[in-house]
Protein backbone atom coordinates (compact mmCIF):
# COMPACT_ATOMS: atom_id res chain seq x y z
CA UNK A 1 0.00 0.00 0.00
CA UNK A 2 1.38 3.37 -0.99
CA UNK A 3 0.87 6.07 1.59
CA UNK A 4 0.98 9.64 0.40
CA UNK A 5 1.95 12.05 3.09
CA UNK A 6 0.70 15.57 3.18
CA UNK A 7 3.06 18.41 4.08
CA UNK A 8 1.55 18.75 7.53
CA UNK A 9 2.17 15.08 8.15
CA UNK A 10 5.78 15.43 7.08
CA UNK A 11 6.20 18.39 9.41
CA UNK A 12 4.70 16.33 12.19
CA UNK A 13 7.14 13.48 11.48
CA UNK A 14 10.10 15.82 11.77
CA UNK A 15 8.90 17.37 15.01
CA UNK A 16 8.05 14.01 16.43
CA UNK A 17 11.54 12.71 15.70
CA UNK A 18 13.08 15.85 17.23
CA UNK A 19 10.88 15.44 20.28
CA UNK A 20 12.05 11.84 20.69
CA UNK A 21 15.67 12.93 20.43
CA UNK A 22 14.94 15.48 23.14
CA UNK A 23 13.51 12.76 25.36
CA UNK A 24 16.55 10.57 24.76
CA UNK A 25 18.83 13.43 25.81
CA UNK A 26 16.82 14.11 28.96
CA UNK A 27 16.91 10.42 29.83
CA UNK A 28 20.59 9.94 29.25
CA UNK A 29 22.10 13.23 30.34
CA UNK A 30 22.00 12.64 34.12
CA UNK A 31 23.99 9.44 33.68
CA UNK A 32 26.34 11.06 31.22
CA UNK A 33 26.91 13.88 33.70
CA UNK A 34 27.72 11.41 36.44
CA UNK A 35 30.11 9.45 34.22
CA UNK A 36 31.96 12.63 33.22
CA UNK A 37 32.06 13.85 36.81
CA UNK A 38 33.33 10.48 38.02
CA UNK A 39 36.51 10.77 35.93
CA UNK A 40 37.07 14.47 36.59
CA UNK A 41 39.85 16.10 38.50
CA UNK A 42 38.66 16.06 42.16
CA UNK A 43 39.83 19.59 42.87
CA UNK A 44 38.02 21.12 39.90
CA UNK A 45 34.98 19.01 40.64
CA UNK A 46 34.68 20.56 44.08
CA UNK A 47 34.64 24.06 42.63
CA UNK A 48 32.43 23.25 39.67
CA UNK A 49 28.86 24.50 39.33
CA UNK A 50 26.24 23.64 36.72
CA UNK A 51 26.43 21.36 33.72
CA UNK A 52 29.30 19.06 32.84
CA UNK A 53 29.86 17.96 29.26
CA UNK A 54 33.43 16.69 29.35
CA UNK A 55 35.63 15.53 32.22
CA UNK A 56 36.95 18.50 34.21
CA UNK A 57 40.70 18.76 34.09
CA UNK A 58 42.85 15.68 33.65
CA UNK A 59 40.68 12.56 33.45
CA UNK A 60 41.44 10.18 36.30
CA UNK A 61 40.28 6.80 37.54
CA UNK A 62 41.37 7.61 41.09
CA UNK A 63 37.78 7.78 42.30
CA UNK A 64 37.01 4.30 41.03
CA UNK A 65 40.08 2.94 42.75
CA UNK A 66 38.91 4.41 46.04
CA UNK A 67 35.31 3.31 45.50
CA UNK A 68 36.19 -0.26 44.66
CA UNK A 69 38.41 -0.43 47.73
CA UNK A 70 35.68 0.88 49.98
CA UNK A 71 34.96 -2.04 52.35
CA UNK A 72 31.30 -1.00 52.67
CA UNK A 73 30.74 -1.17 48.93
CA UNK A 74 32.39 -4.58 48.74
CA UNK A 75 30.41 -5.88 51.69
CA UNK A 76 27.24 -4.43 50.20
CA UNK A 77 27.91 -6.08 46.88
CA UNK A 78 28.50 -9.42 48.55
CA UNK A 79 25.34 -9.20 50.64
CA UNK A 80 23.26 -8.03 47.70
CA UNK A 81 24.57 -10.93 45.61
CA UNK A 82 23.39 -13.25 48.36
CA UNK A 83 19.95 -11.63 48.62
CA UNK A 84 19.48 -11.60 44.85
CA UNK A 85 20.55 -15.23 44.46
CA UNK A 86 18.87 -16.87 47.44
CA UNK A 87 15.91 -14.49 47.43
CA UNK A 88 15.16 -15.11 43.77
CA UNK A 89 15.43 -18.87 44.25
CA UNK A 90 12.93 -18.71 47.11
CA UNK A 91 10.66 -16.49 45.01
CA UNK A 92 10.83 -18.85 42.06
CA UNK A 93 10.13 -21.92 44.13
CA UNK A 94 7.21 -20.39 46.02
CA UNK A 95 5.71 -18.66 43.01
CA UNK A 96 5.92 -21.71 40.78
CA UNK A 97 4.48 -24.19 43.29
CA UNK A 98 1.80 -21.63 44.09
CA UNK A 99 0.95 -21.27 40.41
CA UNK A 100 1.07 -25.03 40.02
CA UNK A 101 -1.39 -25.82 42.79
CA UNK A 102 -3.89 -23.15 41.81
CA UNK A 103 -3.95 -24.40 38.23
CA UNK A 104 -4.71 -28.02 39.29
CA UNK A 105 -8.39 -28.74 38.80
CA UNK A 106 -8.21 -31.51 41.40
CA UNK A 107 -6.85 -29.22 44.12
CA UNK A 108 -9.66 -28.78 46.59
CA UNK A 109 -8.58 -25.37 47.99
CA UNK A 110 -7.87 -23.82 44.61
CA UNK A 111 -10.56 -21.15 44.92
CA UNK A 112 -9.79 -20.50 48.58
CA UNK A 113 -6.11 -19.92 47.91
CA UNK A 114 -6.89 -17.64 44.96
CA UNK A 115 -9.32 -15.61 47.03
CA UNK A 116 -6.77 -15.32 49.82
CA UNK A 117 -4.20 -14.04 47.37
CA UNK A 118 -6.57 -11.57 45.76
CA UNK A 119 -7.47 -10.12 49.16
CA UNK A 120 -3.82 -9.40 49.87
CA UNK A 121 -3.61 -7.40 46.65
CA UNK A 122 -6.15 -4.91 47.90
CA UNK A 123 -5.75 -4.92 51.63
CA UNK A 124 -2.83 -5.50 53.94
CA UNK A 125 -1.98 -5.18 57.58
CA UNK A 126 0.54 -2.47 56.94
CA UNK A 127 4.03 -1.72 58.09
CA UNK A 128 3.87 -2.03 61.84
CA UNK A 129 1.88 -5.26 62.12
CA UNK A 130 4.34 -6.81 59.65
CA UNK A 131 7.17 -5.55 61.81
CA UNK A 132 5.58 -7.18 64.85
CA UNK A 133 5.16 -10.46 62.96
CA UNK A 134 8.83 -10.37 62.00
CA UNK A 135 9.79 -9.75 65.62
CA UNK A 136 7.46 -12.48 66.86
CA UNK A 137 8.95 -15.00 64.45
CA UNK A 138 12.37 -14.07 65.87
CA UNK A 139 13.74 -13.37 62.42
CA UNK A 140 14.37 -9.65 63.08
CA UNK A 141 17.96 -8.76 62.15
CA UNK A 142 18.44 -12.03 60.27
CA UNK A 143 18.65 -12.50 56.51
CA UNK A 144 15.24 -14.23 56.66
CA UNK A 145 13.60 -10.94 57.50
CA UNK A 146 14.78 -9.70 54.11
CA UNK A 147 14.08 -12.90 52.19
CA UNK A 148 10.77 -14.18 53.53
CA UNK A 149 8.21 -11.34 53.82
CA UNK A 150 8.30 -10.78 50.05
CA UNK A 151 8.62 -14.45 49.07
CA UNK A 152 5.62 -14.33 46.74
CA UNK A 153 4.39 -11.40 44.70
CA UNK A 154 0.76 -12.09 43.86
CA UNK A 155 1.09 -10.11 40.67
CA UNK A 156 3.97 -12.30 39.50
CA UNK A 157 2.12 -15.41 40.57
CA UNK A 158 -0.81 -14.43 38.40
CA UNK A 159 1.51 -13.93 35.43
CA UNK A 160 2.94 -17.39 35.98
CA UNK A 161 -0.49 -18.90 36.51
CA UNK A 162 -1.62 -17.47 33.17
CA UNK A 163 1.37 -19.08 31.53
CA UNK A 164 0.74 -22.46 33.18
CA UNK A 165 -2.88 -22.34 32.03
CA UNK A 166 -1.64 -22.05 28.46
CA UNK A 167 0.32 -25.31 28.65
CA UNK A 168 -1.74 -27.97 26.81
CA UNK A 169 -3.31 -30.42 29.22
CA UNK A 170 -2.37 -33.31 26.95
CA UNK A 171 1.29 -32.86 27.94
CA UNK A 172 0.66 -33.74 31.55
CA UNK A 173 -2.14 -36.23 30.92
CA UNK A 174 0.16 -38.64 29.17
CA UNK A 175 2.63 -38.34 32.05
CA UNK A 176 -0.12 -38.97 34.59
CA UNK A 177 -1.16 -42.09 32.68
CA UNK A 178 2.43 -43.21 32.96
CA UNK A 179 2.04 -42.88 36.70
CA UNK A 180 3.72 -39.51 37.32
CA UNK A 181 2.73 -37.81 40.57
CA UNK A 182 2.19 -34.08 41.10
CA UNK A 183 5.83 -33.44 41.92
CA UNK A 184 7.06 -35.11 38.72
CA UNK A 185 4.46 -33.31 36.64
CA UNK A 186 5.57 -30.00 38.19
CA UNK A 187 9.29 -30.67 38.04
CA UNK A 188 9.64 -32.64 34.81
CA UNK A 189 6.84 -31.28 32.65
CA UNK A 190 5.54 -27.89 33.73
CA UNK A 191 8.83 -26.26 34.72
CA UNK A 192 10.83 -27.28 31.62
CA UNK A 193 8.01 -25.95 29.45
CA UNK A 194 7.93 -22.67 31.36
CA UNK A 195 11.40 -21.36 30.65
CA UNK A 196 10.21 -18.07 29.11
CA UNK A 197 8.05 -17.17 32.09
CA UNK A 198 10.75 -18.31 34.51
CA UNK A 199 13.18 -15.94 32.77
CA UNK A 200 10.69 -13.12 33.27
CA UNK A 201 10.28 -14.03 36.94
CA UNK A 202 14.04 -14.19 37.51
CA UNK A 203 14.34 -10.70 36.09
CA UNK A 204 11.42 -9.17 37.97
CA UNK A 205 12.33 -10.68 41.31
CA UNK A 206 16.06 -10.28 40.76
CA UNK A 207 15.81 -6.57 39.99
CA UNK A 208 13.46 -6.22 42.95
CA UNK A 209 16.04 -7.69 45.32
CA UNK A 210 18.83 -5.65 43.80
CA UNK A 211 16.90 -2.43 44.41
CA UNK A 212 15.51 -3.29 47.80
CA UNK A 213 16.40 -0.97 50.66
CA UNK A 214 13.34 -0.23 52.77
CA UNK A 215 12.68 -3.65 54.31
CA UNK A 216 16.37 -4.30 54.89
CA UNK A 217 16.54 -0.89 56.57
CA UNK A 218 13.73 -1.62 59.02
CA UNK A 219 14.43 -5.32 59.56
CA UNK A 220 18.23 -5.28 59.86
CA UNK A 221 20.30 -3.63 62.54
CA UNK A 222 23.60 -5.36 61.93
CA UNK A 223 25.62 -3.50 59.28
CA UNK A 224 27.34 -6.73 58.32
CA UNK A 225 24.08 -7.86 56.71
CA UNK A 226 23.27 -4.61 54.88
CA UNK A 227 22.66 -4.85 51.14
CA UNK A 228 24.44 -2.47 48.78
CA UNK A 229 21.48 -0.09 48.58
CA UNK A 230 21.71 0.72 52.30
CA UNK A 231 25.36 1.67 51.99
CA UNK A 232 24.50 3.70 48.91
CA UNK A 233 21.85 5.47 50.93
CA UNK A 234 24.44 6.43 53.50
CA UNK A 235 26.78 7.78 50.85
CA UNK A 236 24.31 9.37 48.44
CA UNK A 237 21.30 10.38 50.50
CA UNK A 238 22.04 10.72 54.18
CA UNK A 239 25.17 12.70 53.57
CA UNK A 240 23.17 15.18 51.65
CA UNK A 241 19.93 15.46 53.55
CA UNK A 242 21.71 15.66 56.90
CA UNK A 243 23.76 18.56 55.54
CA UNK A 244 20.95 20.20 53.63
CA UNK A 245 22.25 23.67 54.35
CA UNK A 246 24.92 25.29 52.27
CA UNK A 247 27.25 25.89 55.19
CA UNK A 248 27.57 22.25 56.12
CA UNK A 249 27.93 21.28 52.49
CA UNK A 250 30.98 23.51 52.34
CA UNK A 251 32.42 22.08 55.52
CA UNK A 252 32.01 18.71 54.01
CA UNK A 253 34.05 19.78 50.99
CA UNK A 254 36.94 20.89 53.15
CA UNK A 255 36.69 17.72 55.12
CA UNK A 256 37.39 15.51 52.28
CA UNK A 257 38.95 16.20 48.99
CA UNK A 258 37.68 13.07 47.30
CA UNK A 259 34.21 12.88 48.71
CA UNK A 260 32.53 14.39 45.66
CA UNK A 261 34.42 12.23 43.24
CA UNK A 262 33.60 9.10 45.22
CA UNK A 263 29.95 10.04 45.21
CA UNK A 264 29.84 9.96 41.42
CA UNK A 265 31.94 6.83 41.15
CA UNK A 266 29.64 5.09 43.61
CA UNK A 267 26.60 5.90 41.49
CA UNK A 268 28.28 4.41 38.44
CA UNK A 269 29.58 1.37 40.30
CA UNK A 270 26.07 0.67 41.56
CA UNK A 271 24.28 1.27 38.28
CA UNK A 272 26.53 -0.08 35.57
CA UNK A 273 26.09 -3.80 36.30
CA UNK A 274 22.35 -3.63 35.85
CA UNK A 275 22.46 -1.24 32.90
CA UNK A 276 24.94 -3.51 31.14
CA UNK A 277 22.77 -6.59 31.31
CA UNK A 278 19.48 -4.82 30.78
CA UNK A 279 19.55 -4.25 26.98
CA UNK A 280 20.12 -7.97 26.47
CA UNK A 281 17.27 -8.90 28.75
CA UNK A 282 14.91 -6.16 27.62
CA UNK A 283 12.78 -8.45 25.52
CA UNK A 284 12.07 -10.71 28.51
CA UNK A 285 11.00 -7.77 30.62
CA UNK A 286 8.72 -6.53 27.90
CA UNK A 287 7.36 -10.04 27.53
CA UNK A 288 6.62 -10.12 31.24
CA UNK A 289 4.79 -6.82 31.19
CA UNK A 290 2.77 -8.05 28.24
CA UNK A 291 1.75 -11.32 29.87
CA UNK A 292 0.73 -9.23 32.86
CA UNK A 293 -1.18 -6.90 30.59
CA UNK A 294 -3.17 -9.67 28.98
CA UNK A 295 -4.01 -10.92 32.43
CA UNK A 296 -5.02 -7.45 33.61
Amino acid at each position, binding site marked *: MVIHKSTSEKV*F*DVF*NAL*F*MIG*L*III*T*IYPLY*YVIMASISDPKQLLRHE*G*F*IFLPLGQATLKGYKLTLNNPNILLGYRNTAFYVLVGTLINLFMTS*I*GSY*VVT*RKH*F*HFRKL*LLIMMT*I*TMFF*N*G*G*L*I*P*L*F*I*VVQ*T*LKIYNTVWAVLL*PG*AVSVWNLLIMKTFFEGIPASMEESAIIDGA*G*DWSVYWKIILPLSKPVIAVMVLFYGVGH*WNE*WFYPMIFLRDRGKFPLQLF*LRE*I*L*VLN*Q*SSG*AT*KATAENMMEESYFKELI*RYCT*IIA*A*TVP*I*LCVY*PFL*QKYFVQG*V*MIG*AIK*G
Partner: protein
Amino acid sequence: MSTQLVTTKHLLKKESVGKTLIKNIKKHPVLYIMALPVFLYFVIFHFFPMYGLIISFQRYIPAKGLFGSPWVGLKYFTDFFKDMFFWRLIRNTFTLSFLDLVFGFPVPIIFALLLNELTSSKFKKITQTITYMPHFISLVVVCGLIFTFTRSTGPIAQIVASWTGTDITNLLGQSQNFRTIFVSTNIWQGFGWGSIIYFAALSGIDPSLYEAAVIDGAKRMKQVIYITLPGIAPTIIILLILRLGQIMSVGFEKIILLYSPATYETADVISSYVYRKGLLELNFSFGTAVGLFNSVINFALILMANTVSRRVNQTSLW
Protein backbone atom coordinates in the same frame (compact mmCIF):
# COMPACT_ATOMS: atom_id res chain seq x y z
CA MET B 1 -41.62 -32.56 55.46
CA SER B 2 -39.92 -30.61 52.77
CA THR B 3 -37.69 -28.83 55.32
CA GLN B 4 -36.54 -32.16 56.63
CA LEU B 5 -35.74 -33.28 53.16
CA VAL B 6 -33.67 -30.21 52.53
CA THR B 7 -31.79 -30.71 55.80
CA THR B 8 -30.91 -34.29 55.03
CA LYS B 9 -29.90 -33.34 51.56
CA HIS B 10 -27.71 -30.63 53.03
CA LEU B 11 -26.14 -33.08 55.46
CA LEU B 12 -25.56 -35.58 52.74
CA LYS B 13 -23.89 -33.00 50.63
CA LYS B 14 -21.73 -31.78 53.49
CA GLU B 15 -20.60 -35.25 54.32
CA SER B 16 -19.75 -35.92 50.73
CA VAL B 17 -17.71 -32.73 50.51
CA GLY B 18 -15.65 -33.78 53.53
CA LYS B 19 -15.30 -37.26 52.16
CA THR B 20 -14.21 -36.10 48.72
CA LEU B 21 -11.65 -33.84 50.36
CA ILE B 22 -10.15 -36.68 52.39
CA LYS B 23 -10.25 -38.94 49.37
CA ASN B 24 -8.67 -36.17 47.32
CA ILE B 25 -5.88 -35.63 49.85
CA LYS B 26 -5.22 -39.37 50.00
CA LYS B 27 -5.11 -39.52 46.23
CA HIS B 28 -2.86 -36.47 45.75
CA PRO B 29 -0.90 -36.08 49.00
CA VAL B 30 2.02 -34.38 47.26
CA LEU B 31 -0.21 -31.66 45.87
CA TYR B 32 -1.33 -30.68 49.36
CA ILE B 33 2.22 -30.78 50.67
CA MET B 34 3.22 -28.47 47.83
CA ALA B 35 0.40 -26.10 48.62
CA LEU B 36 1.38 -25.94 52.29
CA PRO B 37 4.34 -23.51 52.11
CA VAL B 38 2.40 -21.12 49.90
CA PHE B 39 -0.59 -21.30 52.17
CA LEU B 40 1.57 -20.74 55.25
CA TYR B 41 3.33 -17.83 53.59
CA PHE B 42 0.09 -15.98 52.99
CA VAL B 43 -1.23 -16.74 56.45
CA ILE B 44 1.97 -15.69 58.22
CA PHE B 45 3.06 -12.68 56.21
CA HIS B 46 -0.31 -11.34 55.06
CA PHE B 47 -3.10 -12.53 57.30
CA PHE B 48 -1.27 -12.39 60.63
CA PRO B 49 -0.42 -8.71 59.98
CA MET B 50 -4.09 -8.10 59.15
CA TYR B 51 -4.96 -9.71 62.46
CA GLY B 52 -2.25 -7.57 64.02
CA LEU B 53 -4.31 -4.52 63.10
CA ILE B 54 -6.16 -5.09 66.37
CA ILE B 55 -3.30 -3.38 68.17
CA SER B 56 -4.66 -0.10 66.85
CA PHE B 57 -7.49 -0.63 69.35
CA GLN B 58 -5.08 -1.58 72.14
CA ARG B 59 -2.32 0.09 74.04
CA TYR B 60 0.17 -2.39 72.69
CA ILE B 61 2.82 -3.52 75.11
CA PRO B 62 5.35 -5.75 73.33
CA ALA B 63 5.95 -7.86 76.43
CA LYS B 64 2.25 -8.64 76.74
CA GLY B 65 1.70 -9.28 73.06
CA LEU B 66 -1.46 -9.12 70.98
CA PHE B 67 -3.55 -10.97 73.55
CA GLY B 68 -2.52 -9.35 76.79
CA SER B 69 -2.40 -5.66 75.88
CA PRO B 70 -5.21 -3.51 77.31
CA TRP B 71 -8.01 -2.35 75.04
CA VAL B 72 -8.39 1.37 74.50
CA GLY B 73 -11.14 1.48 71.88
CA LEU B 74 -10.81 4.22 69.32
CA LYS B 75 -8.35 6.29 71.36
CA TYR B 76 -5.57 6.20 68.77
CA PHE B 77 -7.91 7.08 65.96
CA THR B 78 -9.25 10.12 67.78
CA ASP B 79 -5.68 11.01 68.71
CA PHE B 80 -4.85 10.97 65.01
CA PHE B 81 -7.91 13.04 64.02
CA LYS B 82 -6.91 15.62 66.63
CA ASP B 83 -3.25 15.45 65.67
CA MET B 84 -1.93 18.88 64.71
CA PHE B 85 -0.54 17.34 61.52
CA PHE B 86 -3.71 15.49 60.54
CA TRP B 87 -4.84 17.92 57.85
CA ARG B 88 -1.35 18.48 56.60
CA LEU B 89 -0.90 14.74 56.11
CA ILE B 90 -4.24 14.36 54.33
CA ARG B 91 -3.53 17.38 52.15
CA ASN B 92 -0.02 16.20 51.23
CA THR B 93 -1.08 12.62 50.55
CA PHE B 94 -3.83 13.69 48.20
CA THR B 95 -1.93 16.53 46.57
CA LEU B 96 1.14 14.45 45.78
CA SER B 97 -0.97 11.55 44.50
CA PHE B 98 -3.21 13.80 42.53
CA LEU B 99 -0.34 15.67 40.86
CA ASP B 100 1.44 12.42 40.20
CA LEU B 101 -1.71 11.05 38.59
CA VAL B 102 -2.63 14.11 36.55
CA PHE B 103 0.87 14.70 35.21
CA GLY B 104 2.33 11.23 35.42
CA PHE B 105 -0.51 9.13 34.07
CA PRO B 106 -0.97 10.65 30.60
CA VAL B 107 2.74 10.91 29.77
CA PRO B 108 3.32 7.20 28.98
CA ILE B 109 0.15 7.16 26.87
CA ILE B 110 1.18 10.19 24.83
CA PHE B 111 4.68 8.83 24.56
CA ALA B 112 3.42 5.45 23.29
CA LEU B 113 1.19 7.19 20.73
CA LEU B 114 4.02 9.38 19.45
CA LEU B 115 6.44 6.48 19.43
CA ASN B 116 3.94 4.50 17.41
CA GLU B 117 3.95 7.23 14.77
CA LEU B 118 7.71 7.04 14.25
CA THR B 119 8.44 5.82 10.75
CA SER B 120 11.85 4.26 11.29
CA SER B 121 11.58 1.05 13.28
CA LYS B 122 15.25 1.19 14.21
CA PHE B 123 14.87 4.64 15.72
CA LYS B 124 11.79 3.36 17.53
CA LYS B 125 13.78 0.49 19.06
CA ILE B 126 16.62 2.74 20.17
CA THR B 127 14.21 5.21 21.74
CA GLN B 128 12.49 2.39 23.59
CA THR B 129 15.69 0.84 24.91
CA ILE B 130 16.93 4.18 26.18
CA THR B 131 13.72 5.43 27.71
CA TYR B 132 13.08 2.14 29.57
CA MET B 133 16.48 2.42 31.19
CA PRO B 134 15.78 4.73 34.15
CA HIS B 135 13.30 2.15 35.43
CA PHE B 136 16.27 -0.06 36.24
CA ILE B 137 18.17 2.49 38.26
CA SER B 138 17.53 1.82 41.91
CA LEU B 139 15.43 4.28 43.85
CA VAL B 140 18.30 5.08 46.18
CA VAL B 141 20.53 5.99 43.24
CA VAL B 142 17.77 8.03 41.58
CA CYS B 143 17.38 9.98 44.79
CA GLY B 144 21.15 10.39 44.89
CA LEU B 145 20.95 11.84 41.38
CA ILE B 146 18.13 14.15 42.42
CA PHE B 147 20.19 15.47 45.33
CA THR B 148 23.18 15.96 43.06
CA PHE B 149 21.25 17.91 40.44
CA THR B 150 19.14 20.06 42.72
CA ARG B 151 21.71 21.11 45.32
CA SER B 152 23.10 24.59 44.91
CA THR B 153 26.02 23.51 42.70
CA GLY B 154 23.86 21.19 40.61
CA PRO B 155 22.79 22.04 37.05
CA ILE B 156 19.06 22.15 37.77
CA ALA B 157 19.47 24.54 40.67
CA GLN B 158 21.62 26.73 38.42
CA ILE B 159 19.06 26.76 35.61
CA VAL B 160 16.20 27.54 37.97
CA ALA B 161 18.16 30.37 39.54
CA SER B 162 19.02 31.94 36.19
CA TRP B 163 15.46 31.60 34.89
CA THR B 164 13.73 32.98 37.92
CA GLY B 165 16.47 35.47 38.73
CA THR B 166 16.64 34.31 42.34
CA ASP B 167 19.61 33.26 44.43
CA ILE B 168 21.01 29.81 43.84
CA THR B 169 19.74 27.52 46.55
CA ASN B 170 19.46 23.89 47.44
CA LEU B 171 16.07 23.22 45.83
CA LEU B 172 15.21 20.20 47.95
CA GLY B 173 15.74 22.21 51.09
CA GLN B 174 12.66 24.29 50.40
CA SER B 175 9.18 22.96 50.87
CA GLN B 176 7.67 24.78 47.89
CA ASN B 177 9.82 22.77 45.48
CA PHE B 178 9.20 19.32 46.81
CA ARG B 179 6.09 18.52 44.80
CA THR B 180 7.57 19.57 41.49
CA ILE B 181 10.73 17.59 42.10
CA PHE B 182 8.85 14.54 43.29
CA VAL B 183 6.41 14.43 40.37
CA SER B 184 8.83 15.36 37.59
CA THR B 185 11.42 12.80 38.65
CA ASN B 186 8.72 10.14 38.88
CA ILE B 187 7.87 10.91 35.28
CA TRP B 188 11.54 10.87 34.30
CA GLN B 189 12.01 7.43 35.79
CA GLY B 190 8.73 5.88 34.74
CA PHE B 191 7.37 7.20 31.45
CA GLY B 192 9.32 4.83 29.17
CA TRP B 193 8.62 1.73 31.15
CA GLY B 194 5.01 2.73 31.66
CA SER B 195 4.52 3.00 27.92
CA ILE B 196 5.28 -0.70 27.29
CA ILE B 197 1.84 -1.78 28.28
CA TYR B 198 0.20 0.77 25.97
CA PHE B 199 2.56 -0.15 23.20
CA ALA B 200 1.45 -3.76 23.63
CA ALA B 201 -2.17 -2.63 23.44
CA LEU B 202 -1.41 -0.59 20.32
CA SER B 203 0.09 -3.59 18.57
CA GLY B 204 -3.07 -5.52 19.38
CA ILE B 205 -5.26 -3.23 17.31
CA ASP B 206 -6.50 -4.85 14.11
CA PRO B 207 -4.46 -3.35 11.23
CA SER B 208 -7.39 -3.74 8.83
CA LEU B 209 -9.10 -0.92 10.73
CA TYR B 210 -6.32 1.44 9.68
CA GLU B 211 -6.38 0.19 6.11
CA ALA B 212 -10.10 0.83 5.94
CA ALA B 213 -9.58 4.29 7.42
CA VAL B 214 -6.91 5.14 4.85
CA ILE B 215 -9.24 4.07 2.06
CA ASP B 216 -11.92 6.29 3.55
CA GLY B 217 -9.39 9.12 3.44
CA ALA B 218 -8.88 9.51 7.19
CA LYS B 219 -5.75 11.47 8.12
CA ARG B 220 -3.38 10.28 10.82
CA MET B 221 -4.91 12.55 13.46
CA LYS B 222 -8.35 11.14 12.71
CA GLN B 223 -7.00 7.61 12.84
CA VAL B 224 -5.55 8.26 16.28
CA ILE B 225 -8.82 9.68 17.56
CA TYR B 226 -11.18 7.12 16.06
CA ILE B 227 -9.14 3.93 16.01
CA THR B 228 -6.07 4.08 18.20
CA LEU B 229 -7.53 5.72 21.31
CA PRO B 230 -10.65 3.56 21.43
CA GLY B 231 -8.40 0.55 20.87
CA ILE B 232 -6.30 1.19 23.96
CA ALA B 233 -9.12 2.63 26.09
CA PRO B 234 -9.72 -0.59 28.10
CA THR B 235 -6.02 -0.74 29.00
CA ILE B 236 -6.07 2.90 30.03
CA ILE B 237 -9.09 2.38 32.24
CA ILE B 238 -7.75 -0.73 33.97
CA LEU B 239 -4.45 0.99 34.68
CA LEU B 240 -6.26 4.06 35.91
CA ILE B 241 -8.25 1.97 38.37
CA LEU B 242 -5.09 0.26 39.58
CA ARG B 243 -3.46 3.64 39.93
CA LEU B 244 -6.37 5.02 41.92
CA GLY B 245 -5.95 2.06 44.21
CA GLN B 246 -2.45 3.27 45.03
CA ILE B 247 -3.43 6.82 45.76
CA MET B 248 -2.84 6.52 49.46
CA SER B 249 0.57 4.90 49.13
CA VAL B 250 2.19 7.64 46.94
CA GLY B 251 5.64 6.09 46.62
CA PHE B 252 6.45 6.79 50.24
CA GLU B 253 9.86 5.08 49.96
CA LYS B 254 10.94 7.88 47.69
CA ILE B 255 9.45 10.47 50.02
CA ILE B 256 11.36 9.02 52.95
CA LEU B 257 14.58 9.25 50.95
CA LEU B 258 13.98 12.80 49.75
CA TYR B 259 12.27 14.66 52.55
CA SER B 260 13.76 16.41 55.54
CA PRO B 261 12.22 18.29 58.45
CA ALA B 262 12.59 21.45 56.32
CA THR B 263 10.19 20.02 53.72
CA TYR B 264 7.72 18.13 55.94
CA GLU B 265 5.25 20.92 55.25
CA THR B 266 4.67 19.62 51.71
CA ALA B 267 6.40 16.23 51.75
CA ASP B 268 5.16 14.40 54.80
CA VAL B 269 2.37 11.96 53.86
CA ILE B 270 0.34 9.50 55.89
CA SER B 271 2.60 6.51 55.18
CA SER B 272 5.80 8.38 55.97
CA TYR B 273 4.15 9.54 59.21
CA VAL B 274 3.30 5.91 60.03
CA TYR B 275 6.93 5.02 59.52
CA ARG B 276 8.21 7.88 61.67
CA LYS B 277 5.71 7.57 64.49
CA GLY B 278 5.48 3.80 64.47
CA LEU B 279 8.98 2.59 63.80
CA LEU B 280 11.25 5.50 64.66
CA GLU B 281 9.35 6.69 67.73
CA LEU B 282 8.16 3.14 68.51
CA ASN B 283 4.57 4.18 68.96
CA PHE B 284 3.26 0.91 67.54
CA SER B 285 -0.44 1.29 68.29
CA PHE B 286 -0.71 4.84 67.06
CA GLY B 287 1.25 4.02 63.91
CA THR B 288 -0.96 1.02 63.20
CA ALA B 289 -4.11 3.07 63.69
CA VAL B 290 -2.88 5.68 61.21
CA GLY B 291 -1.90 2.91 58.79
CA LEU B 292 -5.31 1.27 59.10
CA PHE B 293 -7.02 4.58 58.41
CA ASN B 294 -4.87 4.84 55.29
CA SER B 295 -5.72 1.31 54.07
CA VAL B 296 -9.44 1.74 54.64
CA ILE B 297 -9.57 4.91 52.56
CA ASN B 298 -7.44 3.25 49.94
CA PHE B 299 -9.72 0.27 49.73
CA ALA B 300 -12.78 2.50 49.50
CA LEU B 301 -11.15 4.35 46.61
CA ILE B 302 -10.53 1.14 44.65
CA LEU B 303 -14.12 0.02 45.18
CA MET B 304 -15.39 3.40 44.02
CA ALA B 305 -13.17 3.53 40.97
CA ASN B 306 -14.14 0.01 40.01
CA THR B 307 -17.85 0.65 40.40
CA VAL B 308 -17.76 3.88 38.45
CA SER B 309 -15.79 2.26 35.66
CA ARG B 310 -18.16 -0.70 35.48
CA ARG B 311 -21.16 1.64 35.23
CA VAL B 312 -19.59 3.90 32.67
CA ASN B 313 -18.08 1.44 30.25
CA GLN B 314 -18.28 -2.15 31.42
CA THR B 315 -14.57 -2.34 32.13
CA SER B 316 -13.69 -3.42 35.62
CA LEU B 317 -11.19 -5.40 37.63
CA TRP B 318 -13.80 -7.84 38.91
